């Protein structure tokens, strides 16, 4: 077999969407009842397929190996003799049931995907007006309360673009904690702008769970560090009042 032929073969072998897809194929191929899978037969064929892929030196996704071990496990459990008088539990617990559930679920979605694909798709089967009308050529900027169409994905992508232009690794260190802290910071600044000054107690308001207290405190530390607020105390151990660092 020459080089070209063998790669051609390789591409054609990569035809399953995953281990469940392969299993469904084997079930269909053998005309097996999905509710009553002869596990030994299917395991054998599944392993042969994997062997085949390996012998062709093709990449095999880890999920295929996980499924192989699942099949072997189910097979070994099926070989265990049933107790003389099987309890209700023994009867209910067919080792295959979870796999069957998965297969049926996957099969249902595979069919759903196929039926989605058969719909009249925009830009494949149906088309909409794609030339601009004269009034669209005049760029009519609307009032300032206009709606904005953008998705978070666009927003993150924009940020990702910026970040990828920078070497600054520190910029990548954005995590959940910082962001939920930012919510509190926003909140604190809002209230300070409205009320001019507040005590820590007042800042907390009604919501005095531990998480809230800690976050509010961290927010204040951050704001003080950023020189956005100032904290004053009338006396030692007195009430601490928070002011905006600069009058708005």
């Amino acid at each position, binding site marked *: 077999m020459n080089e070209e032929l063998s790669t051609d073969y390789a591409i*054609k*072998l990569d*035809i399953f*969407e*995953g*281990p*469940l*897809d392969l299993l469904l*194929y084997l079930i269909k*191929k053998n005309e097996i009842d999905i*509710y*009553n899978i*002869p*596990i*030994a*037969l299917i395991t*054998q*064929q599944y392993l*042969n*397929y994997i062997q*085949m892929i390996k012998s062709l030196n093709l990449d095999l*996704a880890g*999920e295929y190996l996980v*499924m192989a071990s699942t099949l072997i496990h189910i097979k070994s459990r*099926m*070989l265990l003799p049933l107790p003389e008088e099987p309890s209700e539990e*023994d009867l209910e617990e*067919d080792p*295959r*049931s979870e796999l*069957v*559930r*998965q297969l*049926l*679920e996957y*099969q*249902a*979605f*595979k*069919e*759903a*995907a196929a039926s*989605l*694909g058969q*719909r*009249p*798709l*925009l*830009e*494949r*089967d*149906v*088309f*909409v*007006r794609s030339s601009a*009308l004269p*009034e669209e050529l005049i760029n009519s900027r609307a009032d300032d309360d206009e709606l904005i169409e953008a*998705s*978070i*994905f666009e927003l993150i992508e924009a940020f990702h673009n910026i970040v990828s232009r920078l070497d600054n690794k520190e910029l990548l260190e954005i995590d959940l904690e910082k962001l939920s802290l930012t919510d509190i910071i926003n909140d604190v600044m809002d209230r300070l702008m409205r009320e001019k000054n507040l005590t820590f107690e007042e800042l907390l308001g009604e919501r005095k769970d531990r998480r809230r207290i800690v976050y509010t405190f961290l927010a204040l530390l951050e704001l003080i560090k950023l020189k956005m607020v100032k904290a004053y105390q009338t006396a030692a151990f007195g009430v601490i009042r928070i002011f905006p660092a600069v009058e708005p």
Partner: protein
Amino acid sequence: MDNISAVIEALILASESPLPLEKICAVLNGVDKTEVKDALDKLIAGYEERQSGISIQEVAGGFQFRTRPQMAVWIKKLKGNRPGSLSPAALETLAIVAYRQPIVKAEIESVRGVDVSAPLKGLLEKKLIRIMGRKDAPGKPIIYGTTKKFLEVFNLRELADLPTMRELTEITEQQGMLDLETAEEDTGRQETVTQESIGEQISQVISDRFSEDDIDP
């Protein structure tokens, strides 16, 4: 006022995206909603009767001029075949998101049995799915859902328009039907599989699958 049907027709053509009935009513304020709906229905029927090459379709909660599916072959001749159709992996992932939304990546993966990073990314880029928020669970995973564009692309009026998944409802009902008696029979059949028959099968698999792919480009 001009003929209501004519105004509606112009509005639908001029709109960038499917135009909701409510918006039409808002523009024609003062006209009764049922009257607007009647005029719209008549308009739609007119395009049907004339067997026009275009029609007004209800998609994504609004009305839009679209070419008829039978015209696709001619339009492709005009515009050329364009790539960018969805792979089976993307379509499966999209179906799971569509029917199970809001859904997190791990749940999609548990249905498909494989990693879905690549198809998810593709679907996000195509704006067929979107990030809806985060799940209040360990790791705060991202929740995905479909977009309005999904409805537009798949010619759906609304999510409820998705064909029902008959099989999914049956799963829970039929689960009890598994029985253990078959275990013995099973071990017996093991011997019938030979190494040779597998080779033959695999080539069968290849030809089966390949021809399937040929049908759906």
